[in-house]
């Protein structure tokens, strides 16, 4: 079996849909470790990917006013027990363009694996980018995931990002995204993580509302159990008139797990407004009672609530 087939098999076994990668009208880039296994581009999309001595470097550009019909699929992973995958991404969505980029990160057998992602994203004026990153991890927990992104959203631009790590052990996660949002732009950042055993989760999302009427929401949903730990930092600065930001963090804690939330909201312009809400603790008692009154056992009720917040 080729390495690509093996990567796709692991991706499929983790619940992913492999059909998109076979579709001739859908762009993709697949890489295992430091090797690029497959790539396809479509009209209006330019992908320059190369293998470097310690990783993969990719420059992705969606041309001005091009609206990609199908999502661009990125399939990354390390199939061996040990290894490092370092990815440097440089993404530009030119003025008036729009794209949905879906990243699947597959690490089924990781015992000592590092996955480092360093991304620079530029979203042009009136452009839109949706970025969904879903991780499929094995149950060993020997993985370190370090995704970092610096994003600039242009005037009237739209940026939606969704990070999901709810399958398998998290291992160590240190997510750090920073967004600078220009006038009339919209930013929505969502992260959902389910930690078990000794998983260690650090999530830091920052939005700088630099332009007039820029709007943002940072939404984080974390569930942790056993001896897992989580620290979620949501930072929003309102630096221009009419800027509106909101930080919303919910963490459900079971067993001996320990959770921390640090919302930092700062307003440097009297015309800006930033709000936050954080809820940390065990599952809500009234939610539990309601589901149990439907006949669900306490364990079933917790499962329904946790799956709900991570959906």
């Amino acid at each position, binding site marked *: 079996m080729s390495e690509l087939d093996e990567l796709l098999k692991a991706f499929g076994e983790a619940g992913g849909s492999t059909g998109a990668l076979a579709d001739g009208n859908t762009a993709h880039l697949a890489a295992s470790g430091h090797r690029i296994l497959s790539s396809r581009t479509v009209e209006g999309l330019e992908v320059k990917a190369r293998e470097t001595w310690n990783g993969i470097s990719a420059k992705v550009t969606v041309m001005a006013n091009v609206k990609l019909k199908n999502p661009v699929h990125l399939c990354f992973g390390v199939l061996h027990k040990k290894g490092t995958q370092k990815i440097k991404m440089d993404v530009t969505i030119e003025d008036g363009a729009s794209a949905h980029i879906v990243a699947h990160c597959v690490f089924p057998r990781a015992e000592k694996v590092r996955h480092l992602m360093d991304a620079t994203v530029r979203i042009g004026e009136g452009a839109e980018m949706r970025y969904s990153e879903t991780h499929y991890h094995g149950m060993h927990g020997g993985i370190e995931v370090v995704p970092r992104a610096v994003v600039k959203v242009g005037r009237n631009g739209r940026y939606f990002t969704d990070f999901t790590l709810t399958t398998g052990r998290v291992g160590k996660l240190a997510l750090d995204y920073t967004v600078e949002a220009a006038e009339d732009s919209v930013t929505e950042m969502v992260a959902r993580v389910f930690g078990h055993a000794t998983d260690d989760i650090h999530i830091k999302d920052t939005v700088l509302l630099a332009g007039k009427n820029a709007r943002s929401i940072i939404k984080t949903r974390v569930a942790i159990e056993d001896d897992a730990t989580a620290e979620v930092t949501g930072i929003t600065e309102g630096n221009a008139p009419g800027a509106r930001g909101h930080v919303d963090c919910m963490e459900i804690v079971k067993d001996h797990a320990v959770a921390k939330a640090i919302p930092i909201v700062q307003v440097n312009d009297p015309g800006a407004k930033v709000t936050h809400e954080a809820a940390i603790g065990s599952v809500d008692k009234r939610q539990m009672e309601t589901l149990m009154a439907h*006949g669900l056992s306490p364990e079933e009720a917790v499962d329904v609530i946790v799956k709900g917040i991570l959906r």
Partner: protein
Amino acid sequence: MPLLDVQDIVFDAGPSRQVRILDGLSLSIEAGEIHALLGANGTGKSTLAALVMGCDGYRQTRGDLLFEGRSLSGLRIHERARLGITMAWQEPVRFEGIGVADYLALRNKDDDPSRALELVGLSPVLYRSRMVDRSLSGGERKRIELASLFTLKPKLAILDEPDSGIDMLSTADIINVIAAFKRSGSAVLLITHREEIALIADRASQLCGGRIICSGTPAKVAEHYKARHCEICVGGECHYV
């Protein structure tokens, strides 16, 4: 044998159980019967509901609760639910990430939930794909809770003020839902402040100071309630109303 037999229940609340909420309350509900419970705020109606459902922190100080002749003591909420008791709280909670269709199929995945939604006056086309979260208004959430209870086909549904948060024009919808529970064979313990809702019941009782002070036909009890008659309040006039 009554479906639910509340026998001389005393419930004391507070850290050292110094506040008496229910004071020797006895009540029975027959299978398939709607029993309305009237009473002002603080008279113990919702406490009785929580005791019957077995909510956390609600254990009677004295007395017993029998369901189909079996004591409910020691049974947790889900165990009582599996016997056929369920409850709609006065203010139903929201659930993030749970769709209406999934919520209606929590325990009964085979039935089409459309009928239950239509029953509570909601369009299945519009609401099946909605979430049971903060995007719903209080009234919408309440209707969905009633619909979800209906799909459970309970032997006893405890409805704690099902009309609160529902606009006056929709009162008829709520009366239809309560009637539908009865038609499908469920008994209902109906807690309400509103006479027009209570009149749908087969029997009614009025609570004051944790005791039943009047029982009989809904019309008789509603009249008693409106007239502020009270056998236990000083001067014979209810201080709670």
